[in-house]
């Protein structure tokens, strides 16, 4: 007999035991964005949010650039929410060939 099963079920995962949380107007969960990293001449990175113009940060390495752009994004989003202003999302800028891109989820 040939055993055709090639994968195994991940342990400890009970399909119906996973809880889900939904966002409400009073309690939003958060937002996702694409963090784009451009290498600069000093060996560091300039980071920006692909879907939100004007939010830029930098870091000495990729990890710190991502950390900094997340903080800048959080501050911007919280400001928009506190002021009751719509968040001016735009189409994601196309990624340039020398840029790194990371999808980031940020809770608010």
């Amino acid at each position: 007999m040939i055993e055709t099963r090639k994968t195994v079920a991940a342990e400890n995962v009970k399909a119906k035991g996973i809880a889900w949380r939904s966002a409400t107007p009073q309690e939003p969960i958060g937002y996702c964005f694409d963090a784009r990293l451009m290498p600069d001449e000093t060996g560091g990175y300039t980071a920006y949010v692909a879907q939100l113009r004007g939010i830029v940060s930098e870091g000495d390495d990729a990890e710190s650039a991502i950390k900094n752009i997340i903080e800048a994004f959080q501050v911007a989003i919280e400001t928009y929410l506190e002021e009751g202003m719509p968040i001016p999302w735009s189409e994601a800028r196309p990624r340039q060939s020398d840029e790194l891109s990371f999808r980031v989820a940020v809770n608010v």
Partner: protein
Amino acid sequence: MTTNSTPVLQALLLADHIYTDQSGKRVICGTFSKIFAPEFPSVFNGPVWAFILLTDVVGKVVLQLRFVHLSDNQILMESTPIEIKSDDPLQALDIALQIPGFPLPEAGVYSFECYADTTMIGSVRLQVMKVHSQESADD
């Protein structure tokens, strides 16, 4: 030895139902990438299922699935963290996850995004369209 590798997502599918037979095989029924609603805002009455297939899991990894509205990047729903573990990066691990009903504020493109720790390892798009009642009846 410890390694910090990111799991590789081999498959992420949405389906009407996933059965697990006696041998442990997954039976994935009714995969889809489009849904229709007669009006918005709406709630898609679940449950639906997600099939996740991973390799390169080394040690413990925390998975999370998020449902995102791509027009405003808002996370509409997220699962609680799911801890998985494996000692063999070559081992393929499958997960069948039940998803309850989910909100649909408007027609457009949505995404179920799979995160391993803080890194998105893949996503599946869901196109949501408005359908008129006559078209609904024809379906």
